């Protein structure tokens, strides 16, 4: 007999790590020493990171069509890097190869027709590349998001992302700075974060985060940092520490935004993007109007009740500077007047006016500007400080925004007629110059169109009517989609030119066309942005002094823009050049103007019919000073209360669930244990024993994994958790001893001999079994009572509501996916390494022949 073989191999329980010689450092035992799969795994991680972060571009680019070329480029570059690296090429060769692959991939995808053999760049390719780059830069400079995914911008994104793959790979792999590679991913995320109104978006963020974590994880797996290695091979505390850090960071983020003043309010409510409970939906003038209109859901619902004879437009802001590539509202902060109690237009008013009272509830609508019917005289019931612009009468929050505002607007609507307007032919005086200034670089097509259309009209009103008639003619069609397809979605003079050629667009195009053409014809003009009249809800709202008023609602789908033109002696007059939207005012209708056909079915239904625009209350009642109405709709508040209650219930359920789980487990165990417990047949002591262990765990006396049942039981019985010091034979202790003995007999004793008597009195704890109740449930109850009686208040509380036995089980199950992942990764790695080795061997064999 020899003692030479010291270890036994291969009876199956050894893992990969333990098969190494045990006299070697065992800390390194479970490290992988084969690196065959490393390039592949790392390249896959980088590809996931870049492709995932690129998901955030949805919204910068419209739709998803652009994603497939991007994905192909990223994949091919990552693949080439992996191939080169697994062939053990030098690092610079790997990077150069990646670049080459990127060039080939981009050429193949975008310049197939203009290159040699479809993938080798030629001088012709360079020409097209220049063209594409110009197109891309035009897109970046001129268009507002989301832009149509034209070939130029997509090619640019593909090229940049391909380069980033190479960069991130270089950082993470040869330079061994995996954490720094996050900068590359951040560079991708910055673009949507800055450009998109809704920031990066969940998809992009999750994709980038998953990819980054993969990169970190893979690098750590293959080149472990010795500083983070604790005394055990896989450092099991890491996940827990990570989770704690994440929870702390998240809590800090959520708490900080409550502490920082003005974080989620004010003019630019950046913070409200983080609001998880409700989407803040505003009407970003110009930029997102198209998005709002196309929104299928109708968010940003505003309800209002009015006594106006015709449902008014709600005007939020005006745009009067038409210079530049993109328009935005002009904020003349210096000339703004504080307070909304008394608003004065400051210019001549029409001879006849009616006063209108409107109670508005903005709900989730978030904007610095307040929607109000034109022309507001006073706004009451607002919270926060507001100011108004004498030139445009737009009302803007100083330190607040329009979210959750309930207010009553008293406004004056001039009684206009076509005859009155036609008479207003005097030269314009007293209007700020900015409303008259011609844009600096008006496209020729706009100017010529204006001249053609207004030829023959001699009064300002006639010219305005001519322009409106032209825009409402059958030549033009209303469409939300054609600007997108044509690449002129958005605003700006170049868009306007495109619109006049394509003759299809939506309100902003019609309104801006009319406004710009009016200025060219010498009529002061501006674009008003707000909401078309909307729909009656059928409800009525009581406004003080008014009785019940009919309620209307508008939402994002009613977002609208219309031109306002100034006539001397009358003031600003709204027109409606957009076919099939809004209501053409009576003064601006002429019998010959046909209504333009809409290409958008949905919006036909939204067009208010005659019924809704007819005033339900024909007699306008002048209201001197409206009080704060009771217009605050109870509905929203009730919903909030409901949400609150639901949240509290959910929280309570969450807190109670460990308790519920624990008591459920106990009930099930004791039911099993008591089935035939006193007899020897069929009963089982195991569930009662498990319950005893869990009870002890709950009260801070957790059994150790390597602790024998008897030792645990003795420790428990002797501990202060079970009895006062010195008491050795309490009922709880005897119950615990009996449970232990039953368990031992069943677990370790002779099968079928469970009922046999103990051999002698020396057997621990068996003496008490006579006078004890024979039911396991009763014994467990005795133990529990004893534990409860000796535990402090906090321990009792924890045992009842957050029992450690349940919580540790949850922690274990949280760690389970990690184990599965690592096992899968290991298997995949081996498979890859094996197959790759086979391939390499066969290639070598072929080469040798």
């Amino acid at each position, binding site marked *: 007999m020899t003692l030479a073989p010291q270890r036994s191999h291969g009876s199956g329980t050894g893992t990969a790590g333990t098969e190494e010689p045990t006299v070697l450092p065992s800390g390194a035992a479970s490290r992988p020493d084969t690196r065959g799969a490393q390039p592949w795994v790392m390249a896959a991680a980088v590809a996931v990171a870049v492709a995932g972060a690129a998901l955030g571009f949805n919204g910068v680019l419209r739709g998803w069509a652009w994603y497939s070329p991007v994905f192909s480029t990223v994949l091919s570059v990552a693949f080439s890097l992996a191939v080169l690296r697994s062939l053990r090429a030098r690092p610079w060769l790997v990077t150069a190869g990646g670049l080459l692959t990127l060039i080939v991939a981009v050429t193949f995808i975008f310049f197939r027709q203009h290159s040699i053999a479809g993938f080798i760049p030629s001088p012709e390719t360079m020409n097209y590349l220049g063209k594409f780059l110009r197109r891309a830069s035009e897109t970046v400079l001129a268009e507002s998001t989301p832009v149509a995914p034209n070939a130029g911008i997509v090619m640019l994104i593909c090229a940049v992302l391909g380069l980033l793959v190479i960069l991130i790979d270089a950082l993470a792999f040869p330079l061994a700075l995996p954490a720094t590679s996050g900068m590359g991913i951040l560079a991708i995320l910055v673009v949507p974060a800055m450009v998109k109104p809704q920031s990066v978006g969940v998809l992009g963020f999750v994709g980038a985060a998953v990819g980054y974590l993969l990169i970190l994880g893979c690098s750590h797996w293959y080149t472990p940092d010795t500083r983070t290695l604790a005394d055990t091979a896989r450092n099991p505390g890491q996940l827990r520490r990570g989770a704690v850090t994440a929870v702390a960071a998240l809590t800090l983020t959520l708490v900080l935004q409550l502490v920082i003043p003005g974080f989620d309010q004010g003019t630019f409510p950046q913070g409200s993007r983080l609001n998880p409970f409700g989407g803040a939906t505003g009407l970003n003038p110009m930029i997102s109007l198209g998005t709002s209109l196309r929104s299928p859901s109708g968010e940003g619902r505003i309800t209002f009740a009015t006594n106006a004879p015709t449902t008014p437009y709600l005007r939020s802001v005006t745009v009067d500077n038409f210079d530049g590539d993109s328009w935005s509202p002009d904020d003349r902060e210096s000339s703004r007047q504080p307070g909304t109690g008394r608003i004065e237009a400051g210019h001549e008013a029409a001879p006849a006016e009616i006063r209108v009272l409107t109670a508005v509830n903005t709900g989730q609508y978030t904007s610095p500007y307040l929607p109000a019917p034109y022309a507001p005289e006073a706004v009451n019931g607002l919270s926060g400080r507001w100011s108004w612009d004498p030139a445009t009468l737009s009302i803007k929050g100083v330190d607040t925004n329009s979210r959750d505002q309930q207010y009553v607007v008293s406004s004056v609507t001039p009684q206009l007629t076509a005859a009155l307007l036609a008479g207003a032919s005097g030269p314009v005086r007293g209007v700020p110059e900015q409303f008259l200034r011609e844009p600096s670089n008006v496209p020729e097509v706009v100017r010529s169109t204006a001249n053609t259309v207004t030829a023959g009209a001699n009064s300002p009103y006639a010219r305005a009517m001519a322009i409106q008639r032209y825009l409402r003619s059958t030549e033009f069609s209303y469409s939300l989609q054609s600007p997108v397809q044509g690449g002129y979605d958005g605003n700006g003079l170049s868009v306007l030119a495109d619109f006049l050629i394509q003759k299809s667009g939506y309100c902003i195009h019609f309104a801006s066309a009319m406004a710009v053409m009016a200025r060219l014809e010498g009529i002061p003009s501006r674009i008003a942005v707000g909401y078309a009249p909307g729909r009656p809800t059928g409800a009525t709202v009581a406004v003080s002094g008014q009785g019940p008023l009919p309620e209307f609602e508008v939402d994002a789908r009613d977002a609208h823009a219309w031109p306002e033109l100034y006539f001397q002696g009358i003031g600003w007059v709204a027109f409606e050049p957009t076919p099939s939207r809004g209501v053409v005012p009576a003064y601006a209708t002429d019998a010959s103007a046909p209504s333009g056909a809409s290409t958008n079915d949905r919006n036909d239904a939204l067009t208010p019919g005659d019924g809704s625009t007819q005033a339900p209350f024909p007699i306008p009642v002048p209201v001197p000073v409206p009080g704060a109405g009771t217009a605050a709709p109870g509905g929203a508040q009730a919903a909030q209360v409901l949400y609150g209650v639901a949240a509290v219930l959910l929280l309570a359920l969450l807190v109670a669930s460990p308790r519920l789980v624990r008591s459920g487990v106990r009930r099930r165990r004791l039911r099993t244990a008591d089935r035939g417990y006193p007899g020897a047949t069929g009963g089982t002591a195991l569930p009662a024993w498990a319950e005893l262990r869990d009870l002890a765990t709950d009260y801070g006396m957790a059994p150790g994994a390597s602790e024998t049942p008897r030792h645990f039981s003795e420790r428990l019985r002797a501990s202060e958790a079970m009895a006062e010091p010195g008491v050795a034979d309490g009922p709880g202790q005897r119950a615990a001893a009996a449970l232990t003995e039953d368990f031992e007999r069943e677990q370790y004793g*002779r099968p079928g001999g469970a009922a046999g008597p103990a051999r002698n009195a020396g057997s621990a704890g068996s003496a008490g079994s006579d006078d004890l109740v024979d039911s396991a449930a009763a014994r467990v109850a005795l133990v529990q009572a004893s534990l409860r009686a000796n535990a402090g208040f906090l321990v009792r509380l924890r045992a009842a509501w957050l029992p450690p036995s349940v919580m540790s089980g949850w922690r274990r199950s949280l760690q389970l996916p990690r184990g599965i992942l690592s096992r899968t990764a290991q298997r995949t790695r081996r498979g890859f390494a094996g197959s790759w080795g086979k391939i390499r061997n066969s290639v070598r064999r072929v080469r040798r022949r």
Partner: protein
Amino acid sequence: MDYHRTSVDDILPQGQSLPGRASMDPNPAGQRPPRHELPAMDADAFHSASTRILTAINTVIDGKAEAAKLALTVLLAQGHLLLEDVPGVGKTLLAKTLGRTIDCSVSRIQFTPDLLPSDVTGVSIYNQATRTFEFRHGAVFANIVIGDEINRASAKTQSALLECMEEHQVTVDGTSYRLDEPFMVVATQNPIEMEGTYPLPEAQRDRFMARISMGYPDRESEMEMLETHQASSPLARVTAVVTAAEVAAMIATVQQVYVSRSIKEYTVAVGRATRESGYLRLGASPRSMLQLLRAAKATAALEGRDFVLPDDVVSVAEAVLAHRIILDRKAASAGETPQSVIRAIIAKIPVTPDVTASPNGTGRPARKASAMAAAPSPKLPNPR
């Protein structure tokens, strides 16, 4: 024995079988002649006999109840005992007392460097009268053989004794002589660092079921010893309290103690852990697993149980395993002892099955066991 194919069955005693085969005859005819014809004792008789022996020993040796119990455990488990300690702490006294309490033949061999193998086993001598060779029995022909200072004899003599221990027989001039049952060797030795000693090779140490260090008595015991043992040798008062037949019946009882599958798995886990530990150059042999289980059975019987608990295995593991393993150099230089390494290993083996974590599966704890055994103990220095 092929160490590469160790399984639960390999290390089971012949009479023991897995629970699924519990109904099989524990001693299949033809495989091995039954050693003990005596029937097993009942629980009360066993308890009274063991109490008598232990009481008798404890009257002689003060404050060494644990050592006395372990010695009895080894006797009942049919093993051999190695008492190792510095001179003068009562090694020989314990051995002698154990022999004296049992009404059986006791012989004592004082091992010296010039002791010959034939002194141990016996020798054939030519009888002038009968003109034949006749075999004169050596000192090993007794129920309890006390080998005093065993490491002072030459390796050759040691080997002769060790062969008897393993085979329970003596072969001289081609004739085999069976030894009496029960047969137990109680050897004492000084620690190997002492002068004039031939250390027992690993292979021979492996044949002793357990090694006990006596240790110095505590203050009270030492005082009491001075009081009572001044005049006469305490050994003189000891009389036999059990007969050899009773001991044989006790041994039979121990053999019938039940070992459940989870205990076997636990034992195997302990053994594997010693072999996979990074601190040991030599782990525990499969034979030692067998002896560990036997000793655990004897412990269980002494505790009055007819089944083995994990506690029984744990309580004897140190005594059974510590003298068989060899420390790695680094562990030794870090001040570890075989005992401390065994304790650290035991402290990491989960007691299967964990009814809370996995009520039915034993796969998870077993996997955990090997993983934990491979991981270094927090107490120990990093073996890198």
